[in-house]
């Protein structure tokens, strides 16, 4: 039994459009009762029980993102933002619809992907770099800058498990910002470190904005939406309910949450 699926294609075109999404749908099969394992699977099949519930997460999204746009995606928990981002990143498969990615896309679903506690800071930097697509030689070239930016030079040869969580995030962020691609996908990575480090992050985002980098940012922070975004998309229950001026979207979202400004 093959499910018909949507498509995600990567192209290199010069048409000013970075991402095109048409009628994107996604649902997950959530196991109803304990339906892992072979025994339960056979039982379920014999009894004609599906063993899962269809949870519709995205119910048909349509939007285009132009090159050089800094787009914020906002919405409540469980509205489908992260699922959307993961589909754009190619991690999840689109169930229906069409996605065209124009150019190289660098996703940051989480900082420090692949970080391993048993390895030293140095080894983790190279590992994480490889996951972002950097070769050893490229990593060598930017190695010192990474540590300098993270302000952790003296901990290079310590195992990662001896780092505080703040230190880990700083290191990860410091590697992440080296990544160069036509499109950046960022999921909630702004909230890291202390106030001083936060400033560095904000400067980085400002520089992305000024350099006309195409960015898609999933966030709960309306300050960030107002400050950096050219455009914002509000998602509610797997549908786009608003798409446009970041200030208006931020207002609508705040109102939706029922919080007084």
């Amino acid at each position: 039994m093959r499910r018909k699926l949507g498509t995600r294609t990567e192209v290199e075109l010069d048409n000013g459009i970075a991402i095109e999404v048409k009628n994107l749908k996604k649902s997950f099969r959530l196991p109803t009762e304990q339906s892992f394992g072979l025994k339960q699977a056979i039982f379920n099949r014999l009894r004609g029980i599906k063993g899962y519930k269809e949870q519709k997460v995205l119910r048909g999204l349509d939007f285009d993102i132009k090159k050089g746009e800094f787009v914020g995606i906002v919405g409540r928990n469980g509205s489908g933002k992260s699922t959307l981002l993961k589909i754009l990143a190619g991690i999840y498969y689109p169930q229906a619809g069409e996605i065209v990615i124009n150019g190289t896309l660098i996703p940051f679903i989480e900082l420090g992907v692949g970080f391993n506690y048993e390895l030293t800071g140095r080894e983790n930097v190279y590992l994480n770099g490889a996951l972002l697509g950097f070769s050893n030689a490229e990593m060598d070239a930017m190695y010192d800058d990474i540590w300098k930016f993270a302000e952790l030079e003296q901990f290079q040869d310590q195992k990662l498990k001896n780092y505080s969580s703040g230190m880990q995030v700083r290191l990860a962020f410091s590697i992440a910002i080296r990544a160069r691609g036509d499109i950046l996908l960022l999921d909630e990575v702004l909230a890291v470190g202390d106030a001083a480090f936060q400033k560095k992050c904000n400067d980085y985002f400002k520089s992305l904005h000024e350099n006309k980098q195409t960015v898609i940012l999933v966030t709960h922070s309306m300050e960030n939406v107002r400050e950096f975004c050219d455009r914002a998309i509000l998602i509610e229950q797997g549908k786009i309910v608003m798409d446009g001026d970041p200030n208006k979207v931020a207002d609508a979202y705040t109102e939706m949450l029922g919080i007084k400004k």
Partner: protein
Amino acid sequence: MKIPRVLNRKNRILLKELTKTDFKLRYQGSVLGYLWALLRPLMMFAILYIVFSKLLKIGNDIPHYPVYLLCGTTLWSFFTECTSQGIQAIIARGELLRKISFPKYIVVVSSQLTALINLGINLIVVVIFALINGVAPSWSWFLVIPIILELYLLSLGIAFLLGAINVKYRDITSIWDVLVQALFYAVPIIYPIQMVAGTSTLAAKIILLNPIAQCIQDVRFNLITPETVTTWNFVGLPYAIVPLVIVVVILIAGALTFRHKSKFFAEEV
């Protein structure tokens, strides 16, 4: 998965770095570290040698029997390590699959590359033992390489097939553990195939149709003694190609299953 992209620059970097990490982590925190990769098969060999050769007096009529046995256990360790690591790979790297997008076969291959490196080092030990034992070096030793490739492709096919199913049905891991135990006795590693042939020629022929048995016997034939009974010289054509057909079928079935299921690994793992 388009063919030209399979080993592009980014994937190569990823494969290399993941293999390095696997390798480093496997022996982390143990005093003897990497030596364990050598010690484990050697110890297994020592036990089997004492029990089967010394106590049960099996294989005394085979020339260079200790090396013959060591060669078998080395290849067997490689096969079990390769398959069990490969089957586990997707789950072990689940965290990664949920965070970045890359061809999923990379985690399977990288987990097996460590086993390949171990095999390389263990084969050097086998060669040293062979030389000490008085086996004359020969050009036919190089024929071992394509045979090991065949054994590896079989492991890869099994890892693709079972690893893909294992993501949803974790029972596979346990089933495979038991199956491997059974397979160990179905392959002439500790007993010489001549022993089986003495009772039933048909049984011996069937055993030799197993690709694992075929590979092990062929390696022994080329590396240790041409007196080894192989699928080729014992079963003969046309059935001698059965092991090869099995390898190809498993590899193709594994690759197709893996390719289809890998789209949903990130959601299911």
